[in-house]
């Protein structure tokens, strides 16, 4: 019996008691953390008079659907924003995952001249603040005719740097023996990549894809800089627009905020274990 177990067996009741109190305290703290979400949801169903009532009415007396109607079927429809955001996030994420995984394989498994130098260059690129790139990209995109199109948002995200890092990190953990024996059997890089690495790295790739999707979905800054036509707006920009147009429609604002966080909350609820473990492992290993 280890010393650890001995201590536990000495006073099992006391430890459980402590644990219970800590659980209650931490649950309470956790609730405080997500209270803004409850307030947002509850306010989105309220009539103007009820919004700032105190004590807070967490469950509105009547569920007023008006704010949600204004968000989805009003002058600025969230259906348009949703469609734009889905298009950009899906194409951007799919591209980033594929091109990122290929490059990650190259950096992890294919020895070539200057590989380390190139990798350091990638590392340095990650430190560059996006603001430094906004102005030159604006000029370039205007010149190339993709300013104020969705391509201005999609193209840069496809060439992910962080994704190359993340997936390379995982590829490095795949034993060399596996790819070497495949190599000896006559399989080329393409077969090794598609038939061995991609299936083995499924969890890492899925985690990256989910995170990348949420980054793309939440990307407000690029949309702000590169889009000016209302019908091209993404969800965050549409939300911003809605708030500017109807600055006193608080319930509508909260309905719009609810609409814009909904997909990410759903994805998180479904995949939270993978997301959290993926984030944790990438950082601790790196």
């Amino acid at each position: 019996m280890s010393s650890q177990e001995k201590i536990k067996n000495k006073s099992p009741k006391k430890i459980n008691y402590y644990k219970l109190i800590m659980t209650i305290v931490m649950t309470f703290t956790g609730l405080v953390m997500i209270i803004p979400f409850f307030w947002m949801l509850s306010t989105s169903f309220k009539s103007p008079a009820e919004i700032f009532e105190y004590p807070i009415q967490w469950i509105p007396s009547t569920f007023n659907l008006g704010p949600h109607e204004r968000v989805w079927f009003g002058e600025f429809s969230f259906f348009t924003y949703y469609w734009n955001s889905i298009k950009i996030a899906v194409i951007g994420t799919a591209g980033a995952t594929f091109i990122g995984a290929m490059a990650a394989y190259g950096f992890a498994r294919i020895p070539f001249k200057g590989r380390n130098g190139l990798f350091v260059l990638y590392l340095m690129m990650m430190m560059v603040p996006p603001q430094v790139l906004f102005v030159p990209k604006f000029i370039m995109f205007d010149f190339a005719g993709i300013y104020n199109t969705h391509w201005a948002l999609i193209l840069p995200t496809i060439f992910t740097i962080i994704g190359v890092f993340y997936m390379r990190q995982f590829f490095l953990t795949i034993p060399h023996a596996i790819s070497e024996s495949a190599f000896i059997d006559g399989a080329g890089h393409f077969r090794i990549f598609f038939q061995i690495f991609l299936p083995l790295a499924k969890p890492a790739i899925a985690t990256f894809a989910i995170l990348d999707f949420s980054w793309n979905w939440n990307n407000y800054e690029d949309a702000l800089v590169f889009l000016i036509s209302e019908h091209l707006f993404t969800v965050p920009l549409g939300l911003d627009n809605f708030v500017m147009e109807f600055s006193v429609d608080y319930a509508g604002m909260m309905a719009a905020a609810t609409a814009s966080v909904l997909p990410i909350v759903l994805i998180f609820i479904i995949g939270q274990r993978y997301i959290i473990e993926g984030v944790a492992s990438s950082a601790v290993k790196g």
Partner: protein
Amino acid sequence: MKWMKRQQMIGYLFILPSIIGVSIFFLFPLLFSLVLSFTNWSGPSGRGTEFIGMENFQRILGDEVFRQAFFNNFLYLIHVPIAVFLGFLVAVFLNRSVYMKNALRAVFFLPYLISPIAIGFVWMLLFHPSEGPINVMLMSLGVDNPPGWLSSTGSSMYAIIIMSAWQIMGFNIIIYLAALQGVPRELEEACSMDGAKKWQITRYVTFPFVSPITLFLLIIGVANAFKNFGLIQAVTGGGPGNSTTILPLYVYQTAFRYYELGYASTIAIILFLVIFAITLLQWLGQKKWVHY
């Protein structure tokens, strides 16, 4: 041998798309930005652009808004150590002894994934100066003159700091939780048998043990505090006055509100250098408190 050569060529094909893309969308703009910072480029086409040498850099020295944005940015940084410290505490508690650890972990992490501007608008109403739940609660607790939060120059940055700390804390918790798995149980137990109190163990055993992670979180957090401006742009637009204008926001506004693209590039380059310098300082300062 020929086959090996061909495989080598195929190898390049794997990285080529990424290299081309990164060159077009990262490397070239970075160099272009450097060039722009020495010009008076304005408007997208840049007609009539000239090289003006160091003029933009001289202008920064006398730019009142730049100076304010610079200091605001350092004030804004406070949210990083706050979120790291609280994140550490929550992680220690979650790690040590709670039921439903995974569910609680998820609850704390959620804000991190959520769009900062969506949640910024929620906070904006929570912080409403006269009717918002936060001030109403403060008043009912006996605070006669609660702060005006986002609507007054003296408190606006603190409201932003609270929002940002709240948002990034979950990330810190998750990273700490993972790191805490590496702290040997036996070590903590040996200390507790020697009569060390729980907080002493946390302070003198656990904290030094995860100090490399603390450094990592500080570096990431500080770098992001000089990059992200979406929340501030959406919620206050840098105001009232310039009380919440930070450097990245000032770059954005100079470029896309006033279309002074050359000058905006100069500020952006300075911003880059500031991030670089602070990261370097943190890296050099680690000897004093980081243990590997």
